């Protein structure tokens, strides 16, 4: 397969964002894209969800920020970021050269924070906004918004009102009924949802009796959480009409295909980027080979095609 054939199989307009592939670098795991410039072919990167941003710069959490778990990792970075102004003025101009859609992952402690950051993005040339209402690693706000349909809808509505670009709402898996929350943000105007963020976890050092992570708890990601993510994507895809972006443990083309079959219109790749910085390209190519073997012309022919009747 040549390049043109591949891009034809993978191109998609996702809720108004034109992407060359449905494979996006997940927020917090793909840096601002620059860190991967030595490794990836940007033609196969569908988009970059940049490291979570806040109105003001943040130093992030003190102490150890990463722990390994069986088939996963836990992190408590705590939204270390230079603030939205530095992002817009310094970082964005640098990374626009990759010619891949830039999705801005925004975070706040209050609804006002989300409003302010959206307003500050009004003039910026970005492709979309991902509203993170599911970060488990900050003391106030964020995940609190994502675990309640009312507050999730509130944030969504306020951001949607002011945003000049498509708004994706990123959902927390630490809830009883994720479909209910997806429906609430859909009703509030979200153009798409992305899920899942990390599961809240904890590890204790049996030598020191202290928490392994500086912030006590952390967000669990990686292959370990994939079964939970696939289940939630499947539940949400049945509950809403807006596109669903699936993520959680994806580290191969077959993993991505599982999410498409479950109903995801696009996927994000997170933790796997750390282990193999070329993985997003490998997933794109693997996806094309799979489509070819199955005589399919476009990956969208997989989306939602899980066959649940009669096992």
């Amino acid at each position, binding site marked *: 397969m040549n390049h043109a054939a591949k891009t034809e199989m993978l191109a998609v307009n996702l809720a108004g964002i034109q992407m060359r592939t449905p494979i996006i670098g997940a927020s*917090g*795991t*793909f*840096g601002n894209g620059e*860190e*991967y410039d*030595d*490794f990836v072919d940007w033609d196969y990167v569908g988009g970059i969800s940049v*490291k979570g941003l806040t109105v003001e710069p943040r*130093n*992030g959490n003190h102490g*150890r*920020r*990463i*722990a*390994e778990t*069986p*088939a*996963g*990792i836990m*992190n408590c*970075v705590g939204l*270390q970021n230079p603030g939205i102004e530095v992002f817009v003025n310094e970082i964005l101009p640098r990374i626009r050269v990759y010619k891949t859609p830039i999705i801005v992952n925004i975070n706040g402690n209050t609804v006002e924070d989300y409003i302010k950051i959206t307003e500050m993005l009004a003039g910026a040339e970005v492709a979309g906004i991902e509203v993170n209402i599911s970060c488990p690693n900050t003391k106030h706000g964020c995940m609190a918004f994502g675990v309640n349909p009312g507050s999730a809808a509130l944030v969504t509505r306020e951001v949607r009102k002011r945003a000049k670009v498509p708004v994706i709402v990123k959902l927390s898996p630490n809830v009883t009924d994720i479909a209910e929350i997806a429906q609430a943000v859909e009703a509030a105007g979200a153009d798409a949802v992305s899920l899942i963020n990390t599961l809240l976890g904890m590890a204790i050092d049996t030598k020191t009796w202290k928490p392994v992570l500086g912030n006590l708890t952390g967000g669990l990601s*990686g*292959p370990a959480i994939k079964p939970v993510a696939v289940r939630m994507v499947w539940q949400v895809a049945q509950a809403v009409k807006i596109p669903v972006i699936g993520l959680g443990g994806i*580290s*191969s083309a077959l993993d991505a295909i599982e999410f498409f079959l479950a109903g995801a219109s696009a996927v994000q790749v997170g*933790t*796997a*980027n*750390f*282990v*193999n*910085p*070329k993985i997003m390209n490998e997933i794109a190519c693997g996806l094309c080979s799979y489509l070819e073997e199955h005589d399919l012309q476009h990956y969208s022919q997989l989306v939602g095609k899980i066959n649940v009747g009669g096992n």
Partner: protein
Amino acid sequence: MGKKFWQETQIVENIPVNTDTYYMKIYAPDIAANANPGQFVMAEVNMLQAPLLNRPLGIAGVDKRQKSITIFYRVVGKGTYLLSQKRKAECIRVLGPLGNGFELKAQRPLLIGGGMGLAPLLFAAQATCPVPVEVIAGGRTENELFWKSLFEEVCQQVHITTDDGSLGTKGTCVSPLASLLSKNKFDAMLACGPIPMLRAVVEYAQSYRIPCQVSLEEHMACGFGACLTCTCEKQDGGYFQVCKQGPVFRAGEVKL
């Protein structure tokens, strides 16, 4: 940090040098061609299985002719155990060279290393040669000091310390500092090892006003600046990324 390479390559050698430490040579032309002393690689241990993450390992030398890099690693957990089980000619993926290395402009440098901290210093000593290099190499027991002969090849003088006195001076690699610093006039100190040792070294450096560089270790997920998990505190607030702004820092920059 210059250009980084993700090399899907082969192990040339993987042999034990003592009861728990291994020497591994990896064919990695691009990394070997670009590596500076103090930089490191991330080595795959169990590609996307458990344990998941690549492991940071200091580059202990390069063989430009064989286009290979060498590392020394101690088996301390699952990842390094799996590495130790790998065989000659087996495939491995390795990412590097990563981070910022040592500044090597001094005319009379003193290297101070404890345990596996000696790995990057060996490369630094090789690169500094023929400038006369002096090194203090510390370990727990004689068994750990396979380093001795390696450093003797490239250093003017090698001072050995062991915690139990089984080889060289009894004590840590900090013990000989007082007398060495008062005898000779060094114009740089390069140190790598556990934090308490680094603290002591930096104190000496400051009182003798010798520019000092320290190489730090932190838990890392990516190794190339993408995850923000490998932080150490800046002296003046906020955090450095050890993998990107380090692992080598000037003594005054970081809180130890």
